[in-house]
């Protein structure tokens, strides 16, 4: 909300620098987004060049049909000759004058200069030239005033505006008066009484108001005004609305907006003569009922929507927007003013469904105090009578039970405990009084929705002490901060991957499609690409690799640690933390990386042939934690290694603590053994069998070559192993080694038909 400071000053005396005020409000009350400067440049010399002037003579410019040549008294003794393009005034008018040297809001500097042969010693000003309103068709005609009076004394030509953004619990700060109350509390200043002077009614006409649903519309004040003269508002009012970001329209409409901004309780004015039924009935819409609102849109309504009707047809979408047919126009003679109250939740739902947010609905949806309607009606009545020359001839105030101030038990020492700061009890209570709380404490009606419990009162005290609250840490008797096993494993894996040359990526957990049909799908995604909760991580990595290929990167090696979401019917999905990686290089590369991870995590992993739609059908391996291998060429062009493992399984299999083994001092015996086996026998099977056959004295066995060719015959292959024998008890002799080799050869021959080459 934009709050013109000159308006705020009407309710509370401001002496402090505005920058400081903005900062303190931001800390204690509501964020001040900006402190804007409106109007002319604010320096002494410049402000002095803007004066009230009286037009002594005005006549057509001798050389230009569209210009007037005026003689204007600006209090300097000698009248000034000024050329003016507007015609909405004549001799005797009191006007706003800028003298040569004056700088206008846009930065334009006036010079005394000839206009069609006549020198103009200044400028007679319009609203828009002073940023007081949108009107540039004519100049400002002021009420009578002494020529030479500084213009700044009668018009806010220098204005500062606070752009305040209260949180949703503080609709009371969506008003100038509410903000003034906050400023008064903050600086211990005196707050002016509620604005608005009671006006005597000029009649006693009946105004019929009925509320169908008092819960939805707890209060409705209707006031009838006769002989209303619709016209433009005076400059001061137009200037305030303009500074507050509202467009002035006509006096009656401007008054409703002005009072809403002043007090925070929105109002509406109907052209009384257009109310066919002549009365007000507030009710819910019938299904499919229609209303053309002020913005010209024909809206179809639902029973959840609340309507103002004239007894026969809808005339406004309650709390949101008036109807087009009953709006106040230049032709309006009689006005029915609505100062009502509406419940927030229903209004919020309607405005959301209709995608229609207005200044009014924005306040109602946060909850407005029904008592404010009375203050709003009084101020609006005063202004309509004063500004539109109207007679107030009828009044109705229909309401259910109105909220009463509520007593909340409050212990000032409790506030101290929460803050970690001692503030004397009388200081706390004085502060609460300035906010409108009565002692012991009684919450004012405009804060009832937000302040219901002791802790809420504590917040009222605390928010004013925030800068004073010291910096401490909790006092603790026991502390233990450490990573869980899974978290340790995750860090180890991340470090290992980085050490292996992989770069970490973060990809969206929502994907376009997933290989599982039952993967969880968002009913209302924001885009097709982010619609399904992935059950696999690897496809996202493949996409990331492809993007880097397209960007011309070489040496691509990417990994990610993230969750996947395995559906479990209507229950929450099973979330696993996965690690997946993609890198150039094919099966060997992927397996090397997974083996290195195994070393880093101290796990012994059995590898088996695997199957997976993303992988090359002949180059896929499976381990208990997941899958690895070479990507299928249709998944990503070229030779790529990839893997996708469940971090939880890795953590479970990882040996912890590490079991230290004594280093064996006896020498090893190294031999290379080659076995010829049928094609379908895997190296892994041979290794397992060899270990079983030789026992612990087989210290190491690693396949290092596979040969196929004439020498071994069709359908067979030769696998060469580097083997080391070692005993923990003695030095092995050549005979020992030969015996071990013999046992291995025997078992492999029996089980796989393996022939030891050269053996």
């Amino acid at each position: 909300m934009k709050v013109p400071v000159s308006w705020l000053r009407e309710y509370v005396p401001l002496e402090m620098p505005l920058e400081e005020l903005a900062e303190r409000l931001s800390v204690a009350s509501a964020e001040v987004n900006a402190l804007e400067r409106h109007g002319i440049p604010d320096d002494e010399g410049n402000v002095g060049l803007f004066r009230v002037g009286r037009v002594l003579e005005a006549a057509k410019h001798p050389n230009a049909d569209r210009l007037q040549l005026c003689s204007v008294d600006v209090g300097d003794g000698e009248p000034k000759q000024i050329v003016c393009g507007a015609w909405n005034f004549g001799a005797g008018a009191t006007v706003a004058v800028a003298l040569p040297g004056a700088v206008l809001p846009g930065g334009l500097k006036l010079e005394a200069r000839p206009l069609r042969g006549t020198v103009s010693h200044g400028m007679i000003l319009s609203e828009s030239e002073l940023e007081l309103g949108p009107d540039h068709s004519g100049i400002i005609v002021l009420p009578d005033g002494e020529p030479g009076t500084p213009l700044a004394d009668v018009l806010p030509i220098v204005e500062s505006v606070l752009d305040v953004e209260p949180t949703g619990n503080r609709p009371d700060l969506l008003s100038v008066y509410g903000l003034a109350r906050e400023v008064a509390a903050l600086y211990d200043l005196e707050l002016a009484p509620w604005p608005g002077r009671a006006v005597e009614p000029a009649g006693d006409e009946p105004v019929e108001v009925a509320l169908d649903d008092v819960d939805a519309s707890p209060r409705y004040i209707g006031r009838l005004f006769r002989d209303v003269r619709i016209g433009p508002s005076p400059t001061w009012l137009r200037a305030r609305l303009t500074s507050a970001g509202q467009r002035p329209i006509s006096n009656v409409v401007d008054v409703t907006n002005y009072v809403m901004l002043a007090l925070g309780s929105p109002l509406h004015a109907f052209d009384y003569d257009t109310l066919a039924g002549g009365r007000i009935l507030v009710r819910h819409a019938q299904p499919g009922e229609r209303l053309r609102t002020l913005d010209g849109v024909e809206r179809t309504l639902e029973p959840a929507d609340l309507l103002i009707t004239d007894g026969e047809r809808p005339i406004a979408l309650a709390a949101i927007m008036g109807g087009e047919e009953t709006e106040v126009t230049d032709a309006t003679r009689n006005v029915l003013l609505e100062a009502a109250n509406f419940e927030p939740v229903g209004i919020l739902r309607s405005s959301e469904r209709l995608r229609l947010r207005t200044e009014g609905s924005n306040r109602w949806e946060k909850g407005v105090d029904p008592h404010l309607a009375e203050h709003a009606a009084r101020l609006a009545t005063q202004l309509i009578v004063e500004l539109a020359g109207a007679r107030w001839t009828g009044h109705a105030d229909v309401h259910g039970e109105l909220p009463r101030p509520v007593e909340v038990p409050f212990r000032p020492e409790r506030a101290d405990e929460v803050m970690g700061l001692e503030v004397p009890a009388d200081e706390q209570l004085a502060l609460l009084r300035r906010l409108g709380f009565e002692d012991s404490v009684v919450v004012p009606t405009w804060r009832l929705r937000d302040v219901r419990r002791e802790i809420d009162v504590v917040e009222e005290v605390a928010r004013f002490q925030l800068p004073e609250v010291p910096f401490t840490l909790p006092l603790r008797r026991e502390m233990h901060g450490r990573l869980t096993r899974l978290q340790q494993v995750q860090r180890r894996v991340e470090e290992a991957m980085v050490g292996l040359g992989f770069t970490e990526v973060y990809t969206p957990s929502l994907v376009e499609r997933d290989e599982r049909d039952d993967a969880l799908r968002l009913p209302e995604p924001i885009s097709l690409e982010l619609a399904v909760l992935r059950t696999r991580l690897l496809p996202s990595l493949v996409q990331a690799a492809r993007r880097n290929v397209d960007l011309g990167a070489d040496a691509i090696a990417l990994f990610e640690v993230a969750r996947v979401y395995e559906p479990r019917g209507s229950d929450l999905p099973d979330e696993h933390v996965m690690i997946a990686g993609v890198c150039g290089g094919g099966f060997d590369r992927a397996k090397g990386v997974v083996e290195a991870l195994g070393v880093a995590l101290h796990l012994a992993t059995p590898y088996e042939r695997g199957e997976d739609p993303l992988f090359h059908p002949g180059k896929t391996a499976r381990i208990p934690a997941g899958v690895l291998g070479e990507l299928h060429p249709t998944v990503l062009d070229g030779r790529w290694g990839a893997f996708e493992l469940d971090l939880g399984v890795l953590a479970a299999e990882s040996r912890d603590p590490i079991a230290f083994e004594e280093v064996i001092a006896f020498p090893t015996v190294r031999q290379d053994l080659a076995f010829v086996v049928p094609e379908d026998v895997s190296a892994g099977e041979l290794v397992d069998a060899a270990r079983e056959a030789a026992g612990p004295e087989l210290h190491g066995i690693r396949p290092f070559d596979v040969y196929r060719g004439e020498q071994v015959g069709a359908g067979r292959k030769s696998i060469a192993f580097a083997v080391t024998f070692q005993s923990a008890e003695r030095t092995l002799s050549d005979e020992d080694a030969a015996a071990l080799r013999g046992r291995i050869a025997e078992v492999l021959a029996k089980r796989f038909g393996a022939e030891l080459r050269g053996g």
Partner: protein
Amino acid sequence: MDASALQSEALAAISGASTVADLEEARVRYLGRKSELALALRAVRDRETGMTLNGVRDALEAAVADRRTALERAELDRTLTEDSLDVTLPGDDLPVGHLHPTTHIRRIVEDAFLGLGYQIYDDREVEWVEDNFDQLAFPDWHPARSPRDTFFLDGRRVLRTETSPSQIHVMQEQEPPIYMVSIGRVYRRDEITPTRFPIFHQFEGLAVDRNITLADLKGTLLHVMRALFGPDRAVRFRTHFFPFTEPSIEPDVSCPICSGEGCRTCKFSGWIEMGGAGMVDPAVFENVGLDPEEWSGFAFGCGLERSAQLRYGIPEIRPFWESDLRVLTQF
């Protein structure tokens, strides 16, 4: 024969030898079989002369050995120098990986809180509406409950909108005192723009103990902000509103870019908004069966990407999700 004169002369010749060949020549001359010293030793008859001459021989042999070592080393160095290379040429091209900036920030946050004795709590991302909103005392009208702002799977399940459901989970699972930080992905139904992405990461802290105060929250956040943005950072609190904390505040950190002088990043205010925080609302304590008169607590939540943006000066959120190696290899 004057033994000491001979020793001086020989030592001078040995130390004066500038090549191994010169040294060998000197050795033969003074220590060889036909040298004056060797001949004299052979002719020795009395014990005293023998000891003297032996002493001279030992000294000369030691001098020859030392000189030989020095000359050989000098010669090796000469050879090696000829084998010099251009040290400005690159070394072997080894693969080097990089952690994502979000992980760097995550680690800083984790380590800061581990140091303060907090547990790190990993939590699910698909959440019950109950735990995401109801238990955290979100009123019915709260805009976050609208499907326009939040990804609902159905009426009961939702992609968590903040890490705060972890507060509920940890208080249901553990007895106070509780000190925990929950870190992970959260989801908001925002359109994708340069500065917004519907998925981001938060860290959420919760302390529940006896006599926890707003001052403790202030001190704790100062600690983590300094861990993230350097030891000179200041922290201030601004009043705010959240359903599950009362009083609620927003912490600001003094701008790490301009140190409070005013710049575009902090919109010339000198302060940067860092999330939300406050004292645990008594309603939340009651929801998990804790007595708010006995237990008090604070909670806070901040964004990891936002922290990374500030720490590293990354103007947009997009690069965090684009997997672009040109970006990621900078971290």
